C-alpha cells in the first residue's frame, strides 16, 4: 500500500460529477446516440462549408450531360460522381447545398415552435384555470388535424414558399411544446423551492421564467431534438407535394418532386435525395433517443 486511493470524502461518497459531465457520461454510453451526433456534425459541416466542398454551383447546367449516371455505372464519369439530373445539374453539388436548407428549416422551425410553445406552456401552467382550459382546448383543436394536412392547408392559405412552409410546420409542432411545458410546470409548482421564491417576493414573471422554467428544460430539449427531425421530414414532404421550397431550390424534397417522372429511367435522381433525408432524420432521432436517456431521470440507471 504505497498509495492512498480513496479520497477523504468517502463519508459522503465520491464527489458528484458536474451536470454536464454526468450528461455526457450517460449520452456517450449510448453508441447509437454518439453515431447520430457524428453524422449530425458531419451534415452540419457540409451545410456550413457547402460552397467550398461542392464541385459546382447548385444551379449550373451542363447541357451535354443530361441524366448522366453515377461514376460506377456504365456511362458515368468522375466529373459528376453521383450523376446529373434531368437538367444536367450535378447531383452531388445539389445534395450538398440541400443540407443547408434542411438545417435552416430545422433551426427556424424548432426556434419558432419551441419559443412560442414554451412561453404559452409556462403561462398555461401558472394561469387561472379558465385560461389554462382555454389554451389547452385550443391546442387540442390544433392537434385534432393530422399535422401534414394542416400544414398543407396553411401553406395553401399563405401561398407556397419555403418560408410559409416553415411557419406552417412550426404552427403544427408548437402544441407539443405547450403540452410538455405545461405538464412540467405543473409538476414543479408545488415544490418547496417555488413556494420559497414566492414567499421571498418573486414577481410572477420571475417565478415563471427564472425560478421554474430552468427545471423544466429536460423534456423540452428532447422534444426540440425530435421536432428538428419532424421539421425536416415535413418540409421535405411539403416540398415533394409542391407546397414547400419551389424549384430550382436544391431542397431535398423538392428535388425528389422534380425528378419523380424520371424514376423508371434514372434511379439515382430519386435515390440520393431521399437517402440524405433519411440519414439526416435518422441521425437526429438517434441523438434524440440518447438525449432522452441522458436527461430523463426516470430512465437513469442509478
Amino acid at each position: 500500500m504505497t498509495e492512498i486511493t480513496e479520497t477523504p470524502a468517502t463519508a459522503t461518497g465520491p464527489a458528484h460529477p458536474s451536470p454536464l459531465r454526468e450528461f455526457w457520461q450517460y449520452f456517450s454510453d449510448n453508441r447509437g446516440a454518439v453515431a447520430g451526433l457524428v453524422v449530425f456534425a458531419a451534415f452540419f459541416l457540409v451545410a456550413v462549408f457547402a460552397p467550398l466542398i461542392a464541385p459546382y454551383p447548385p444551379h449550373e447546367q451542363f447541357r451535354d450531360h443530361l441524366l448522366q449516371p453515377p461514376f460506377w455505372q456504365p456511362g458515368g464519369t468522375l466529373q459528376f460522381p453521383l450523376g446529373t439530373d434531368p437538367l444536367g445539374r450535378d447531383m452531388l453539388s445539389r445534395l450538398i447545398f440541400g443540407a443547408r436548407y434542411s438545417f435552416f428549416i430545422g433551426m427556424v422551425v424548432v426556434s419558432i415552435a419551441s419559443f412560442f410553445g414554451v412561453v404559452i406552456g409556462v403561462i398555461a401552467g401558472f394561469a387561472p384555470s379558465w385560461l389554462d382550459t382555454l389554451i389547452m382546448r385550443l391546442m387540442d383543436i390544433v392537434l385534432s388535424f393530422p399535422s401534414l394536412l394542416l400544414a398543407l392547408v396553411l401553406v395553401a392559405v399563405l401561398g407556397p414558399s419555403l418560408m410559409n412552409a416553415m411557419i406552417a410546420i412550426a404552427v403544427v409542432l408548437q402544441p407539443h411544446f405547450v403540452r410538455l411545458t405545461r405538464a412540467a410546470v405543473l409538476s414543479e409548482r408545488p415544490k418547496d423551492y417555488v413556494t420559497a421564491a414566492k414567499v421571498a417576493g418573486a414577481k410572477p414573471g420571475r417565478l415563471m421564467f427564472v425560478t421554474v422554467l430552468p427545471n423544466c428544460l429536460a423534456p423540452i430539449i428532447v422534444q426540440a431534438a425530435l421536432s428538428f427531425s419532424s421539421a425536416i421530414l415535413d418540409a421535405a414532404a411539403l416540398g415533394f407535394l409542391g407546397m414547400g421550397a419551389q424549384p430550382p431550390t436544391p431542397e431535398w424534397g423538392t428535388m425528389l418532386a422534380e425528378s419523380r417522372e424520371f424514376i423508371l429511367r434514372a434511379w439515382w435522381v430519386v435515390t440520393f435525395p431521399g437517402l440524405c433525408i433519411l440519414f439526416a432524420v435518422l441521425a437526429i432521432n438517434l441523438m434524440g433517443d440518447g438525449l432522452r436517456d441522458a436527461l430523463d431521470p426516470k430512465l437513469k440507471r442509478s
Partner: protein
Amino acid sequence: MLKFLVRRLLTFVPTFLGVTAISFFFIRLIPGDPILLLAGERGVSPERYAELQTQYGFDKPLWGQYLDYIWGVFQGDLGTSFVTKKPVLDEFLTLFPATLELSLCAILLAIAIGIPAGVVAAVNRGKFFDQTLMTTALVGYSMPIFWWALLLIIVFSSGLGWTPVSGRISLMYYFPNATGFMLIDSLMSGQKGAFASAVSHLILPTIVLATIPLAVIARQTRSAMLEVLGEDYVRTARAKGLTPARVNGVHALRNALIPVTTVIGLSVGTLLAGAILTETIFSWPGVGKWMVDSIFRRDYQAVQGGLMLIAVIVMIVNLIVDLLYGLINPKIRKG
C-alpha cells in the same frame, strides 16, 4: 365511469366547434375572390356576380356565413364543391372507403408484425436480435415515406414487375361498387383474377403506409414489455414453473398491451397524414389524394369540408381510445 364519459363528451363539443371554426376561417383567409374563381376565365357580369354571391351566401357578414355553415354541418350539408358541383359530403363518402381499406390493411400489418417483434426484442433485451430490430425500427420511424414509396416502385414495380404502379384494380375488371371496399367487392363479383388484382394493387401502398406505425408499435411494445417483465406477478408466474412462452405471451403481454393500444389508436392521425402522401404517389382514389387535388384546384369548399371531416374522424377515434383506456385502466377516470 359515467362521470368520466360525460366529462370527456363535454370536451368534445368545444373542440368540434373549434375545428369547424378553423376550417371555415382558414379558407376565408385565402387571397382571391371565390366568385371570380367560380366564374372561371370568362369573367362574370355584375348581375350574375350578385346572384352567385347570394347563392353561396357570400353577401352575408363572415359570422353569419359561419353560423349558416355550422347549421348546414349539423344537417349533413357541407356545401358544394366549386369544381365538380357535387355535395362535398357525398364526394368524401364515396372516396372514404378507399382510404379506410388502405388504412385498415396498413394498421393490421403494423400490428401483426410490430407486436411480436417488440415482444421478441424485449425478451432478448440487449442481444443481437434486439439491437438489429430496434435499429430497423428507428430507420422505419425516420423514413421519408414518399421516398420509400418511390424506391419500392423502382424495385418491385419497374424492376421486378411484381406489382402495379398505381390505382386500386386493373382496368380489365368492372363490377358494381357494393361496399366500396375493393377486396370485398372483387371477391363478390366472382370474376376470375379480380381479387388477385385488387390485392396486388394494395400491397405496396399498404407497406408504405404501415412503415411508421409499425416502427412506433414495435418500439412501444418493447418498452411496455420491459416494464412489465420486471413486475412481481411475472416473477411469480415464472416461479410457478410456467413455460417462458406462457409467461411472456400471456401474463406479460396482456398487461403490456394497454399502452400499446393507446399508441395504435393515436396512430390514426399519422395514418391519415401518411395517406395524403401514399395516395398521391400511388394514385389511390381516396380522401388523401382528393384533399391534395382540391388544394391544387383551389376547390376551397371541398378543402374546408374535407379538413373538418378528417379532423372529426381523428377526434372520434381519440375519444374511443380514451374511453377504452378509461375502461381498462381505472386510474385514468379520476385524473
